[in-house]
């Protein structure tokens, strides 16, 4: 490898050629492959979202047929959750940063890392195949017995795609866990790790413990459709509610796969934009683990009106309320980190503030749904839709975009226009709120989810939503435009454009293939801004 600071040795330059990318074992190149793939799927999912909002502009179901609308919202959910949100931060920023933050040359199993991308692609292609063969209409939740007995769409193929993509998630989680355990640089103790690593570690636990369960569940639905297994079919003694238990046992923790990485990104960004040690480091670190573990015990809160035992409901409700506490602790600590900081107003700050605003609303509205007596009214209404979009988009996507804006110079060696970055953050924040805040109101009014047509009294709120979605869409397109445009400019990013701490900022932008010229030795806590400034003054 060539010298640090000499861009010709960067991971982007050598070796050349398509094959060198498609067969790469470099975690950074795999991160880029993932970034391209999930961006494409984000756009596909976004197109479906645009379809939903266009249909709901008017109360009558006049744009699509009912069957087509049902396929559109199903595919919006399937694509966004399984092919964008779940891989989003872990497979891109996680892949890129976990080895570097550990001070390692690569992940523990580079070939398995590449395999995970191929599995993701195969799964995604199968699901896209189901789209081209006529789509699937079960909702992303695949509830039985509709999915196993009633639907005559391509459920098996779409589910097979999700099943295979699940393995890519398991392999990524497994790779991260081994890397964090075995490949940390000398001196990098657990409590010196950047909080992004803690978040990735907690996310990985959920990935490897939860994903196999949804894989089995999907397999059982396939077996019932194809072979007539009586697992969920009540006519032969099966239990349709059993599916909901199995499905949510994974899919509730999967929400934490989507939000914990966003929290990890924000922990990094808050410290960097404030140039300050994170407030309550160990509390933020442990709260990630607490969320990952307790998050496995709350699945039944999706089932308060499903005929689940009301006593089981009690247990799920109280644990749901408890899991709110570590999220609250994180939020307070982020806010406290900014106290007496030195806060920049560069574009990452806009994403940090946007994330906090939206995540607060998302988290707090979860309390409404965790309170059982209130959930009876709110369950399966637009209130729920608004709530989980505030978490998954307000938290997950804002975290992802914040992270992309923060590490873009490191990943590509290019900077993007600051003003455009700020305008995009504002557009996304405003557009998002305009889209989803009215849905809380229309949800409390009683508008159910997954309605192709709706009563007229809900129209004005739906028009607001559609208007907001338009602004949101413009914001996202703006980001894609200036980020892609930046790639056609010469590399101009310095090694550390934000003046941040962390091993990734001590190496060139973009990094060399093996990340470090010599193995780094860590001698300080993460976010040691004050210590570094003192040292700089002494020198």
């Amino acid at each position, binding site marked *: 490898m060539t010298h640090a600071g000499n861009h010709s040795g960067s991971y982007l330059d050598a070796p050349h050629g398509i094959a060198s990318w498609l067969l790469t074992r470099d975690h950074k190149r795999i991160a880029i492959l993932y970034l391209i793939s999930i961006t494409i799927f984000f756009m596909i999912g976004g197109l479906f979202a645009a379809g939903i909002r266009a249909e709901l502009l008017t109360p009558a179901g006049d744009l699509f047929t009912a069957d087509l609308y049902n396929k559109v919202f199903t595919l919006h959910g399937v694509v966004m959750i399984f092919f964008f949100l779940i891989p989003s931060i872990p497979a891109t920023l996680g892949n890129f940063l976990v080895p570097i933050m550990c001070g390692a040359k690569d992940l523990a199993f580079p070939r398995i890392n590449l395999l995970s991308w191929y599995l993701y692609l195969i799964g995604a292609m199968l699901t896209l195949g189901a789209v081209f063969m006529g789509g699937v*209409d079960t909702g992303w939740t695949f509830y039985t017995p509709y999915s196993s007995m*009633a639907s005559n769409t391509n459920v098996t193929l779409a589910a097979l795609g999700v099943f295979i993509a699940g393995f890519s998630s398991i392999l990524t989680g497994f790779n991260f866990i081994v890397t964090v355990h075995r490949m940390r640089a000398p001196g990098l103790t657990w409590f010196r790790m950047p909080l992004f690593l803690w978040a990735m570690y907690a996310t990985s636990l959920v990935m490897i413990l939860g994903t196999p369960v949804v894989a089995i569940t999907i397999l059982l639905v396939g077996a019932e459709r194809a072979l007539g297994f009586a697992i969920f079919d*009540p006519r032969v003694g099966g239990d349709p509610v059993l599916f909901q238990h199995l499905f949510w046992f994974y899919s509730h923790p999967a929400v934490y796969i989507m939000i914990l990485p966003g929290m990890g990104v924000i922990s990094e960004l808050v410290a960097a934009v404030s*140039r300050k040690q994170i407030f309550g480091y160990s509390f933020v670190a442990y709260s990630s683990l607490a969320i990952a573990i307790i998050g496995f015990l709350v699945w039944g809160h999706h089932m308060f009106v*499903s005929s689940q035992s009301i006593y089981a409901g009690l247990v799920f409700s*109280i644990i749901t*309320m408890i899991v709110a506490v570590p999220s609250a602790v994180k939020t307070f600590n982020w806010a406290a980190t900014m106290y007496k900081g030195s806060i920049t107003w560069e574009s990452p700050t806009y994403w940090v503030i946007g994330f906090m605003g939206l995540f607060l609303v998302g988290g707090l509205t979860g309390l*409404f749904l965790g309170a059982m*007596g209130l959930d009876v009214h709110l369950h399966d209404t637009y209130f729920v839709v608004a709530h989980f979009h505030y978490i998954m988009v307000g938290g997950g996507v804002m975290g992802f975009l914040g992270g992309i804006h923060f590490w873009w110079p490191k990943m590509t060696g290019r900077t993007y226009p600051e003003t455009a970055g700020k305008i995009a953050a504002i557009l996304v924040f405003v557009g998002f709120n305009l889209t989803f805040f009215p849905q809380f109101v229309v949800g409390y*009014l009683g508008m159910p989810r997954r309605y192709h047509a709706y009563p007229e009294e809900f129209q004005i709120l739906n028009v607001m939503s559609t208007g907001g979605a338009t602004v949101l869409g413009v914001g996202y397109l703006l980001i894609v435009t200036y980020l892609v445009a930046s790639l056609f400019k010469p590399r101009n990013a310095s090694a550390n454009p934000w003046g941040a701490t962390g091993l990734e900022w001590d190496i060139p932008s973009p990094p060399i293939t093996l990340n470090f010229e010599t193995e780094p030795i860590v001698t300080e806590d993460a976010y040691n801004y004050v210590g570094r400034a003192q040292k700089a003054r002494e020198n």
Partner: protein
Amino acid sequence: MQSSFPLFPEAASSIASDVDLLYFFILAVSSFFAILVSGAVVYFAIKYRRRHPDEVGQDIHGSIALELIWSVIPFVLAMVMFFWGAELYFRIARPPADSMEVFVVGKQWMWKVQHPEGVREINELHVPLGRPVRITLGSEDVLHDYYIPAFRVKMDAVPGKLTTMWFTATKVGTYRIFCAEYCGTQHSGMIGNVIVMEPQDYEAWLAGGRTTGTAVENGERLFTQLACITCHKTDSSGRGPVLAGVFGSTVQLMDGRKIVVDENYLRESIMNPQAKIVLGYQPIMPTFQGTVSEENLLQLIAYIKTLKAPAAAPAAGAPAAAGQPGGK
């Protein structure tokens, strides 16, 4: 009934204002924290904005006291919400003993209602003001959910079992019914209206409705037509258990478990008779899956519930004579 741009749903059941109260409580707590934290973030971001390129923040690492405060206070508030929500939920889940009964069956894509008096309706539900109404809910195909926003209640209709929900309407009027569990093509068309009437109007409406006999009468007719009566005799000489007084009693099963006979057990015993055999009987009863519709099933159950044990009869469900062959 609805204004053209409502921002808050009508409250037309005894439970509705209690649900709204909890909603406003959580809304107040949430708004307080949302404003507190986002206000602090924006305030800090402005007040502590970077003034020199090399400036760093102050050397603050954390505070155990603060961590405790902002763990314990949210925990306590969350527990208040839990207990409040749970208490409300148990009230919503448990119908009063004196409720009048209505049977509702969900089917792609309509709601079929039968009143005990025999009147049937589709997608509409007439109920009297001020009386608790208990709905026994079934499904003929996939999951559905009977949702009345103005009453703040909903419940899944689950194929393969019966579920219940209840409400007491407190305002005369017409309110929407939605299917809230996705059920396929016409899911959003599976809607209807609850019509709440003054009790005397309701009685008049009932009397004016065309009926083919009450639910119990229809159930009794089915009981004979389907030849249930040949095994489930009124005395202990039948091959199946005596059904008089069986509803609500506790029976012992072949595997030693004791269970209370409720609607779901009766339903299961008709549709899947081999699942839970009463001790002392043979598993010889055929399934009525496919023969008996969900509506017929509700009629049969309504009839069986009326069968009262004679005063001197032995404990219901107990095997009358050990040597006798029998089904369930």
